[in-house]
């Protein structure tokens, strides 16, 4: 297999998948937060784009799954990270180089960057030959790298770099500064004055003393005096610098395109795995989801919202895990229950799972079967938009209508507390209408609502509720379980907590 890209199996996929704008649902599902956390500290790679386009075929997904599985080997993972560090150091040198004005300054930096590049590439080659790889992607890359390292182009590049670096390191020159005069000549093994001083007073040595070395904040950029000195050093060693000139001209484009692309693209995996490590440390589980297509029997156990959990871990709070499954004719999860009971979080989690799975990523959960959708829609309540001439209700209906314009049986819709700005009667009516449309499309849907009637709408709907621990009624668990919708359960529990129920008030209020 020819190596094209570590992200995509074939070139046609590469072209098809490119987009630079985040999908509409990103903010609703808090995927923007998740992505920020994943890519934080890796801005230079511009990784976000890779997370913007879901894959549409199972081959492409498997291609990534395999690579992820290879990367679970911590040794390989470290190898790739140190390669990345090398490439980053190389780029730093090149960035610095651009800021320099004196030619033997920037040329040295250029040389330095080539050196780092050669080392990083060679090391990666050796490292990869040591690990056991199974994924098509990494296997193909390893072959490519092997050939590249053995190529004449690369071996000569390395040899020449080392030669010139060695020559430069042999240079040592002397300065005599006398008033305004500066004389530059080759170093002739003059003795170190400080050693003589140390020797003269060695007999007094008593133990640790302070360090009186002044720390100079060195700027890489030379000033005019340093440049004049360097000019004269060049005169003292003309051959060495001539070699540097030639090298610089001949190797301007020394980086191999596929290798630099790999360096960037492999970060898609590294970044995600480093992000997952935060959760794994807390004992949370991830799995490679299977796909039900064309069927719609989906499930995942022990799932959690990545964005929220990330915050909870930072605050050292505990995390609640949820399960869900849809089988037979079930298509729609209707979530009801008390406010702040974790309903919206559950809906987001649901959306995150399907989306992340479509990117070929491992997803939260202990065991999952998901569905590869063609389109994913979210409808979350929006702040009123004054610019817009529509009323809020109208605005919402327009948006919902747009969804149904595009939705197919293979789409997924996530509805969160819709139509709250109208009367209950209206809402019930409209929701039922919308529900009919969804049922007719037979698509997968999760719907958070305060309308109990929706829960038992048809055999395709499943009622789940956010639960309250019975013996400590005031504490909400954020656990979402199957059960009949009962809007009062939680409110009653709060009343009990504050001892305001009828029975309790009878005893508390003295007659």
């Amino acid at each position, binding site marked *: 297999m020819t190596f094209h890209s570590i992200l995509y199996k074939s070139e046609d996929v590469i072209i098809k998948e490119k987009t630079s704008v985040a999908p509409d649902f990103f903010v609703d599902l808090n995927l923007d937060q998740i992505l920020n956390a994943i890519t934080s500290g890796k801005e230079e790679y511009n990784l976000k784009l890779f997370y913007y386009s879901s894959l549409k075929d199972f081959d492409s997904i498997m291609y990534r799954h395999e690579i992820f599985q290879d990367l679970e080997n911590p040794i390989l993972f470290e190898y790739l990270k140190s390669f990345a560090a090398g490439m980053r150091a190389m780029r730093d040198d090149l960035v610095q180089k651009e800021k320099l004005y004196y030619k033997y300054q920037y040329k040295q930096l250029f040389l330095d960057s080539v050196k780092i590049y050669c080392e990083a590439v060679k090391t990666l080659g050796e490292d990869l030959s040591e690990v056991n790889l199974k994924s098509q992607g990494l296997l193909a890359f390893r072959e490519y790298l092997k050939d590249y390292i053995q190529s004449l182009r690369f071996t000569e590049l390395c040899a020449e770099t080392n030669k010139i670096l060695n020559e430069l390191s042999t240079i*040592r020159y002397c*300065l005599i*500064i006398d008033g*305004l*005069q500066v004389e530059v000549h080759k170093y002739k093994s003059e003795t170190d004055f400080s050693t003589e*001083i140390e020797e003269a007073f060695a007999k*007094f040595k*008593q133990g640790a003393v302070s360090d009186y070395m*002044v720390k100079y904040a060195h700027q890489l950029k030379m000033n005019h005096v340093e440049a004049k000195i*360097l000019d004269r050093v060049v005169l003292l060693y003309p051959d060495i610098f001539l070699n540097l000139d030639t090298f610089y001209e001949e190797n301007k484009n020394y980086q191999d395109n596929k290798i630099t692309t790999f360096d960037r693209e492999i970060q898609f995996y590294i970044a995600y795995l480093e992000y997952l490590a935060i959760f794994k440390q807390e004992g949370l589980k991830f799995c490679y989801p299977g796909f039900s297509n064309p069927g719609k029997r989906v499930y995942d156990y022990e799932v959690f919202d990545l964005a929220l959990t990330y915050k909870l871990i930072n605050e050292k709070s505990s995390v609640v895990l949820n399960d869900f499954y849809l089988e037979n004719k079930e298509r729609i999860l209707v979530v009801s229950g008390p406010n702040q009971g974790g309903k919206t979080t559950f809906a987001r989690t649901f959306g995150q799972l399907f989306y992340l799975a479509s990117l070929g990523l491992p997803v939260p959960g202990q065991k999952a079967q998901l569905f590869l959708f063609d389109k994913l829609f979210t409808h979350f309540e929006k702040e009123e938009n004054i610019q817009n001439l529509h009323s809020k209700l109208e605005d919402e209906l327009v948006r919902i209508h747009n969804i149904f314009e595009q939705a197919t049986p293979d789409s997924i819709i996530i509805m969160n507390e819709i139509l709250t700005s109208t009367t209950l009667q209206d809402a019930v009516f409209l929701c039922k209408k919308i529900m009919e449309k969804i049922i007719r499309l037979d698509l997968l849907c999760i719907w958070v609502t305060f309308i109990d009637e929706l829960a038992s709408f048809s055999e395709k709907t499943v009622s789940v509720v956010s639960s309250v621990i019975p013996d400590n009624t005031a504490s909400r668990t954020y656990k979402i379980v199957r059960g009949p919708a009962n809007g009062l359960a939680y409110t009653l529990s709060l009343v009990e907590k504050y001892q305001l129920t009828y029975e309790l008030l009878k005893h508390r209020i003295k007659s």
Partner: protein
Amino acid sequence: MKAFLMFKKSDFPLQQKLPWNTKALIQDLELNTLFNGMAQGDAIISEVAMKAVLSGAYNDVNTILYRQNILRDSLDNASIIKKMYNISIEAIESNKKSYLSEFSLCYPTTTLQNADGVMQLFVGFLQQLRTIADNHSDNFHSEGFTMLFAMLKKELDDEFFSRVKTHLQELKLENGVLLSAGLGKGNKGTNWILHRYLAKRESWFRRLFSKKSSSYTFSIYHKDDRGLRILSDLKGEGVNLVANALAQSADHIHSFFTMLQTELAFYMGCLNLHEQLTQMGEPTSFPSILTNEQHKHSFEGLYDACLALTLKQKTVGNTTNVDDKTLVLITGANKGGKSTYLRSIGLSLLMMQCGMFVPAETFEANLCDSLITHFKREEDITMKSGKLDEELSRMNDIVNHLTPNSIMLFNESFAATNEREGSEIARQIVNALLEKQIQVFFVTHLYDFANSIYVRKLPNVISLRAERQNDTSRTFRLIEAEPLKTSYGEDLYNKIF
């Protein structure tokens, strides 16, 4: 270079762990009076005296004898010791004045100048030390001083001084500087080193012969301020290492003077104390130290040096022989000198163990590995526990730290309760200590306790009593006698009312 006046082979550490019961010892034996008497207002002497006296229990016989001999030399050559001590003080002071405060500057050339200045001064003081060694070493006989003077003569020889002089002259860098560097990142100069540069001698030579070994010269325009600053920075880089080396060397010499001052401070303290005691007509003597196989402890004319320093007059001395005695019971009249006696026992042991003379006409004793006091405290400072509780808690601490070769001084311990209970507690504790061969001096009013021990007529127990003349005046002298039931509190009462 080391002074080695406190230990034959190591420095005297000012940062050292003192015995766990240091605070109690200072309080119970009124050691601050001793330290002040030794220091005569000199803070260094005071600190050294305290550390030396309290760490005495860690010394072996050889160290004690080593110091005794040095102290004898010091007593014979007091003026020279004072002179050397003053030299070390002046050296340290001169350093403080000239540069220490400015050393954190950010120019190596300034560091170099300052260090050079300090060095010039130090060299002067070193020369003074050398002169003393040349002129007076014959008057010293102790191993410590013989070694010190020999070392000064050897290390501070003429060659040393001339070499240093040359270096310091060259480091003024009056003829320009010779630096070398390699190429670092971006071909910037790196690893700067300063070399000796003898420009005047070399310049004509170079002009004539070294044309072949090429060199290139350029000048900075005299109005190029930035260029001039850069040149001086370059010089700084080159001078950095040398400046550091010189400054650190200055620090080392500073440390040498500090060490010399510290170790001489101990003997200065001894001289000061000796002078005062002699003026009062109090005797002092060097104790005989006995090996641990025999259990000896005897003295003539032992007095409490702190009491003498406080009263500024000669005090009553005691003569006792407690050879082979494990328990010394001390009873008798109030204000009869019991506490003073107990303190003089403790103080003399501490002084002996740190190598000092002792406040007695004669003195011989074994070394102990810790001296522990359990004195009745006037009040409970912490207020959190009752008096007896506090005493027992202290006793608990003591038992945690007790070593077989400890000496314990009890002063009216466990009297915070009634006599029967107190006696019972004391009896139980003391019997245990007796059995474990811990040497105990116990001053007590607990007749029940004292008598019950006394009547057993144990060979290793001796009972001393504050003497009382019939006319009710006291001699402050202790005699060997059985415990008396009355403690003469009545006398005191009558005297006062």
